[in-house]
């Protein structure tokens, strides 16, 4: 039998061993009291019980603001070079792994985005099992089953059961096998998925809940603060800006996270806005999360991490649409 068990006692050494493969990052509690993926200075900083970070791991592959092109009169436009520094990202819950899998489909599949490719390759994903709180619904979204990891660590009282999901993960486990022992892993507890069926059926038939009164309710309460998409692991829409540099000759083109609940999102020159009302913007967000656009049509992109429900200052929750339909409010 393969060595797969890491005891709590060996955990700090294991982290040290991981750090040999790249900069170790994981969930820590910042000085201003939020959970965030940050560089780990000492194993004691890691928040193993972290339920969710405020900002999802997407920032590692798709930073909030980045230069995508540079311009100079001599060289014209050129791609910028992403740093590509090796990072070991520890503590990814199944929902966050599913979120990364979704972004992989968007940015790596049909037209690979050069910057995303570079950053994504440089990051090793170490998953960690978790205990859901009242905001989570990964079971509902079918994302409770871990996917898209290099190593997944199933946490129990005595320690962690490791599984490798890639050759990179296998290599690391092999390298650190002196810290491991062989044990029979506990059988997985099936997740309760109360309304997964409802959501998947609704998504398959392209349900837009056009008659629901909830849209009006959402639109009436929403503050357009944008927190819900900022913190969403699968929201990736972006704005592009070009800035001339002070030399008056060269320039930089930046892409920056945008938000579909902002009024400017659907506005075109001359002031016409294709999503003038907040209600229209909510429907757009719903459509993107649950029904998908273009090649991602039919793919539900909400992974049930619960961040948007948690951070929304007025507690708006798109899931209510499904619950209303299924009569399980």
């Amino acid at each position, binding site marked *: 039998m393969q060595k797969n068990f890491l005891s709590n006692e060996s955990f700090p050494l294991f982290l040290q061993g991981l750090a040999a493969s790249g900069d170790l990052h994981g969930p820590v509690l910042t000085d201003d009291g939020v959970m965030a993926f940050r560089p780990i200075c000492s194993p004691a900083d890691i928040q193993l019980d972290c339920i969710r970070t405020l900002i999802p791991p997407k920032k590692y592959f798709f930073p909030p603001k980045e230069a995508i092109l540079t311009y100079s009169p001599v060289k014209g*436009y050129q791609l910028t070079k992403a740093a590509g520094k090796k990072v070991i990202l520890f503590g990814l819950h199944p929902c966050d792994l599913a979120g990364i899998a979704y972004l992989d489909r968007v940015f790596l599949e049909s037209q690979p985005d050069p910057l995303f490719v570079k950053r994504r390759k440089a990051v090793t994903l170490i998953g960690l099992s978790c205990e859901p709180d009242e905001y989570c619904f990964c079971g509902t979204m079918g994302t409770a089953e871990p996917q898209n990891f290099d190593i997944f660590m199933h946490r129990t009282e005595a320690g962690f059961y490791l599984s490798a999901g890639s050759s990179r993960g296998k290599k690391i486990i092999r390298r650190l096998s002196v810290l491991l022992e062989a044990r029979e892993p506990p059988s997985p507890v099936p997740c309760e998925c109360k309304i997964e069926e409802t959501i998947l059926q609704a998504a398959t038939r392209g349900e837009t809940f056009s008659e629901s009164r909830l849209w009006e309710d959402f639109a009436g309460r929403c503050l357009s603060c944008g927190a819900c998409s900022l913190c969403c692991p699968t929201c*990736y*829409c*972006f704005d592009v800006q070009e800035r001339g540099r002070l030399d008056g000759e060269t320039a930089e*083109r930046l892409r920056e996270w945008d938000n579909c609940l902002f009024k400017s999102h*659907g506005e075109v020159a001359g002031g*016409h806005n*294709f999503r003038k009302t907040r209600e229209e913007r909510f429907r757009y967000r719903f459509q993107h999360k649950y029904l998908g656009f*273009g090649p991602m049509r039919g793919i539900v992109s909400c992974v049930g991490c619960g961040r948007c429900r948690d951070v929304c200052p007025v507690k708006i929750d798109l899931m209510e649409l499904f619950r209303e339909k299924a009569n399980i409010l």
Partner: protein
Amino acid sequence: MTDMTTIPAMATITEVHPLSGDTSFFRLGLKEGEAQGFTFTPGQFVQLSVPAAGEFPISLAGSPGHGRELELCVRKAGHVTAVLHNLRPGDPVAVRGPFGTGFPVERMRGNDVILLAGGLGIAPLRSLFHYFLEHREEYGAITLMYGAREPSAILFRDELAELACRRDIRLMLTVDFLTEEPAGGPVCRVGLLPGLLMGIKLRLDQTYAAVCGPPALYRCLITELLGLDFPENRIFLSLERRMKCGIGLCCHCAVGDFFCCTDGPVFSYDRIKEIPGVI
């Protein structure tokens, strides 16, 4: 050839001339080597970069047969287009594309075609019109109906005046208001564009319509066309949306579950008619 999808290819402005108070014609030459074999379908667009100012989507307004030479018709509408309007021949710009789905010229072959343009909507339809003229014998009756606010707002006036003399096409112009008539312009009527359709004989089962203009125009033109029993799947519209990437990534341009930048901008009416707020 560089990858013109993500990296803008450099081009030089070779000609600029005003078409109306706020709109100018730009001819660009893509740098040799960078854009070998650049070609497109009428109705497709490019993302035009103005160094240090930004990038915006713009219809290709010329015939696809001109290789590295591109023709654009740009209205000064905001920040980037204003900077472009200050540029002169010899100045550098850059191009990504071509992007999107254009008009189905193959499917239209052998049929009559009617092009309906309102205002700036003439830009992509000029490309289509020139394409038809270059392949004249492959298409049936060709009609261009073009409406502008007033005579001085008619774009490509000289070109249209010349085309008006051709016997193998039908050209109908109209203006909303008749102010002073500029000397030498083509003959035009007074009234709204949909009015031109009244009393027109169309072979409904052998005609395609291509429409481009502001949203308000679509609503009345579609009503008019459907009133004539024009089949919905033979009406093609070019839609405008906010666009940032042109490749289905930035998520600004969705209509229903389509991306306007990749699935469109040209759609047949039957595919989009159920989408709330589409036009």
